[in-house]
């Protein structure tokens, strides 16, 4: 199918983009990489009157250190998550997740900010912002604000973004020497949506876990932290017994929805398997 007719405006600045949206009302959409929005338009799942192209706004570009954070501009493309040295050094969990995001040609267009704004519960990056305790910087008609990833993902495809607001950057706390991370997902074929996926970031003193954040995707309506499992691990070292306890805790953390393809019990089982593998890798100090 073809998209319904719309008008197109290419914004040069954030203010121009916000202003265009304010004038058009709720019938406008921002477009960046468009790798999810264009198919939605082509299938007429969405039919805005106005598309505001934000890809030429320089303020939304670039990756740089900013205090204790890495500031990742919203327009950073998925392929740059693989090629940008600052990402590999200071946000290695994102670097590890990037090859799993869709296919190479999609990664050449899709943007980090767009992935977070869409908040697909089966996507890698939204879940990783939870594991990283990242903050999302938002520009809107009433100014700029920062929202913790923990408060950003509200419901299925629903976020803290209000109509007319725009993600400008994502702030990720810099990776430290006493931290370890792990990421993996289970999918039938590479590039397919994961049956279950998981990423984690832990802070160690010797072998003891001082803090750990574990986030799953493809397990419910939003990306999800598993706080019960996290609590069983904090303050302990990673032995087989403790890993088993964390796996058991998932039953209280996750309630996968019933789907035609995968029964909830199977998804929960796969989540346990994946958690066990990743904790095993943390243990080895990967």
């Amino acid at each position: 199918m073809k998209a319904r007719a719309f008008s197109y405006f290419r914004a040069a600045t954030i203010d121009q983009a916000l202003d265009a949206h304010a004038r058009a009302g709720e019938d406008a959409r921002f477009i960046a990489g468009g790798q999810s929005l264009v198919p939605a338009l082509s299938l007429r799942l969405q039919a805005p009157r106005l598309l505001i192209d934000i890809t030429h706004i320089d303020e939304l570009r670039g990756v740089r250190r900013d205090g204790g954070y890495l500031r990742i501009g919203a327009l950073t493309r998925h392929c740059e998550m693989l090629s940008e040295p600052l990402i590999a050094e200071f946000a290695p969990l994102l670097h590890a997740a990037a090859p799993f995001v869709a296919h190479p040609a999609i990664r050449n267009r899709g943007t980090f900010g767009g992935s977070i704004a869409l908040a697909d519960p089966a996507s890698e990056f939204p879940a990783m912002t939870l594991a990283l305790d990242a903050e999302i910087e938002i520009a809107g008609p009433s100014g700029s604000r920062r929202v913790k990833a923990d408060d950003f993902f509200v419901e299925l495809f629903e976020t803290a973004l209000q109509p007319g607001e725009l993600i400008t950057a994502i702030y990720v706390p810099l990776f430290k020497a006493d931290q370890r991370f792990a990421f993996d997902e289970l999918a039938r074929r590479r590039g397919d949506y994961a049956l279950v996926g998981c990423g984690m970031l832990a802070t160690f003193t010797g072998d003891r876990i001082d803090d750990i954040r574990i986030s799953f995707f493809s397990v419910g309506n939003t990306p999800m932290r598993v706080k019960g499992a996290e609590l069983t691990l904090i303050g302990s070292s990673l032995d087989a017994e403790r890993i088993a306890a964390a796996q058991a805790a998932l039953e209280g953390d996750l309630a996968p929805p019933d789907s035609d393809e995968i029964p909830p019990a199977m998804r929960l089982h796969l989540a346990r398997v994946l958690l066990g593998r990743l904790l095993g890798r943390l243990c080895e100090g990967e």
Partner: protein
Amino acid sequence: MSGFDETLPDDADETVRVRFIVNGRKVACEVAPRETLVDCLRNALELTGTHAGCEMGACGSCLVQLDGRAVHSCLMFAVQADGARIDTIEGLTESGVIADLQAEFHRRNALQCGFCTPGMLVNAHELLSQVAQPSREDIRDALSGNYCRCTGYEAIVDAIEAVAKARSEGGGAS
């Protein structure tokens, strides 16, 4: 889903003038904002080597190079490409940069109906320009977004692997 739009906005039927460099030539054309790049290439510019398959980014038959990187031309509107450099399968063929890949696809029967072939070649070209010696696993991974409904994947992977070897063993293949 209704096939009739009762609420078309007044100004949305207007066309926009876009300019880009297609296969090394400056091109300008009038497009409606809702026209995808693949439709513009095929209909306005009559470059029909780029194929429109699923039109939702799943099959890979519409891949072109946008500013040197492989992208789905069904996943962007032509207006978004204003000012960009686009290379289609026709341009890559003319310039000879994929001649060895094409010869190897031909030699190994890495195509049957050929519908997926332009996308496969654009993707293979991108892979080999980034990774000199990809493993078969790398090649399969890179092609994961390209469907071949004739299911000729084995020969396609063979052909790309052979060209990678030949290129790294000194200059051209075949």
